[in-house]
């Protein structure tokens, strides 16, 4: 059949070279292929991708259902919202590396700043929505075993010898950074802003930590399932989840005298909503989080609603705790990250040999 095998050989050899060249060429330029996307405004079906962090899965499932119903009623358009969950920093990297998220709803502003740094979002993104672009907040509380055998009442009790504290690793977990900064802020307030004293406090706190899990859920598992530690430093919503899902008879929540206002921010990813022509629906989606309905859902999932009335309706589920913000005490996320969690930062010094 083939009269000249060498010709075939040459063909395949050339094909191989072309394929390799194409592969290498393809690496160096961004993929720009794909058909013209239909403007979402006119299409009857529209899809959004919400890239979020781990513990918000159930919350956004509820939000998505309610928002889709509302949007359908208002515009006649069917919206389906896909969710992606993972560690906050990892999710941010996915978006930077090309995951085409229409909206991001992450654990800390620093992770969205990193996306902004790559030009996908304008640098002043956090001013676009009210309340620092955080429609709901949380704070850091303690979870202890039933009856509170070690009598843990406040941050000072965490540095006592013989108390075993569970918290995730601030180097790998965005949520854990709030825990760490909450402790630091407490020590700062107590010692009239003395940074050295605060460092001493946090150092002795971490001396009491036997296990540094890589994520917040891992820490909860270590404390709840493995029975390790006397106290878990956790987000308020995670603590409520643990108590309600895993046993009111086994754990209780302790509110410290002072804690941090955790503000998980949300924003539209401008580059991708423009590409997908989904800006209107994506912005409406985030606005929905601020609406009465959205605020109710946040409260249902133990996030503190910003809406004063909704918050009031849910007290005493959200007991009043004196809260400070990261801007007040640390000068914002970028500075806090650089001072505390970057390599050779204060957290690394705690573990210096």
């Amino acid at each position, binding site marked *: 059949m083939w009269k000249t095998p060498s010709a075939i050989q040459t063909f395949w*050899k050339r094909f191989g070279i072309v394929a390799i060249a194409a592969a290498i060429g393809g*690496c160096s330029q961004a993929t720009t292929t794909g058909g013209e996307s239909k403007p979402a405004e006119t299409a009857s079906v529209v899809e959004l991708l919400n890239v979020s962090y781990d513990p918000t899965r159930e919350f956004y499932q509820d939000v998505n259902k309610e928002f889709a119903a509302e949007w359908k009623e208002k515009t006649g358009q069917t919206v389906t919202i896909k969710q992606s969950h993972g560690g906050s920093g990892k999710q941010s990297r996915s978006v930077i590396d090309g995951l085409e998220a229409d909206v991001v709803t992450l654990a800390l502003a620093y992770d969205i700043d990193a996306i902004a740094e790559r030009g996908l979002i304008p640098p002043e993104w956090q001013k676009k929505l009210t309340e620092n672009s955080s429609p709901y907040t949380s704070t850091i509380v303690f979870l202890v075993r039933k009856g509170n055998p070690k009598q843990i009442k406040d941050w000072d009790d965490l540095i006592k010898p013989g108390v075993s504290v569970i918290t995730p690793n601030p180097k790998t977990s965005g949520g854990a950074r709030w825990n760490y900064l909450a402790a630091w802020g407490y020590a700062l307030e107590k010692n009239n802003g003395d940074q050295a004293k605060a460092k001493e406090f946090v150092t002795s706190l971490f001396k009491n930590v036997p296990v540094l*899990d890589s994520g917040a859920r891992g820490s909860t598992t270590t404390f709840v399932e*493995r029975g390790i530690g006397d106290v878990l430093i956790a987000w308020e919503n995670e603590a409520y989840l643990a108590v309600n899902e895993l046993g009111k008879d086994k754990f209780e929540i302790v509110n410290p005298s002072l804690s941090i206002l955790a503000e998980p921010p949300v924003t539209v990813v401008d580059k991708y909503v423009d590409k997908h022509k989904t800006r209107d629906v994506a912005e409406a989606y985030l606005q929905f989080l601020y609406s009465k309905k959205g605020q109710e859902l946040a409260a249902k999932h133990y996030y503190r609603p910003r809406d004063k009335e909704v918050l009031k309706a849910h007290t005493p589920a959200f007991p009043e705790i004196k809260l400070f913000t990261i801007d007040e005490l640390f000068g914002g996320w970028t500075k806090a990250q650089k001072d505390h969690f970057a390599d050779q930062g204060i957290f690394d010094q705690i573990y210096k040999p």
Partner: protein
Amino acid sequence: MRKTFRNRGFLPGFGITMGYSIVYLSLLVLIPLSVLFLKASTMSWQQFADTILDGRVLASIRVSILSSFFAAIVNAVFGVLVAWVLARYQFVGKRIIDGIVDLPFALPTAVGGIALTSIYAENGWVGQYLAEWGIKVAYTPIGIWVALTFIGLPFVVRTVQPVLQDWDLQMEEAAATLGATRWSTFIRVILPHLMPAVITGFALAFARALGEYGSVVFISGNMPLKTEIVPLLIMTKLEQFDYAGATAIATVMLVISFVMLLVINYLQWRINKFDAAR
């Protein structure tokens, strides 16, 4: 060159298969790995050295290499044992045991890690008895070693088993007729023949363990300088969006793995030569 190719070709299609192999390997292995080097090369030598020679990085490299090495050693010994049982004996449930060996391959490693942690934690099935003896497994270097042994087991079993199955029993019979004891038959006849497969299995298990992340993060406790493995440090760099730093550490591990595989290949070549010369 072309001539030798054509002379040697019993089967048609050398050009196709070779072209395919190169494209395939390039897309999946060579290009991603060279991107790794490219990314690391955005750093100056000074930055690179600072990243690598940091105390924490060095400590984690030590933890990773030592625990991987001991895990691979244990796998080499007990993997041969398992392969021996599977190749030599007939018993009820043999197929099931044969299947169990592959589980660490199939299971998401995180699942393995979580399962091991719940068993070996101080309140776990096994952990509580070990705790009575004052032995802590989960959240210590021992835990890392357990996880790495778990994920490495199939490598040795699956490389040694086929060699044992193809083994010619006449060799043992000959040894026996010449008056060798069973033990010396094993040491002097069977084991040398098995060595190349064992070493391959050892190398695979070792290299696999060096890069393992999923199962270890759950059981190690991740304490800086004590139970931090290299992949975890790579993750912490990425968490700070320090792509260059992460790839610098990754590059070093890649080079270590590659050198190790080369050394082992060389050893194997020596053994084969020695074997053939006899």
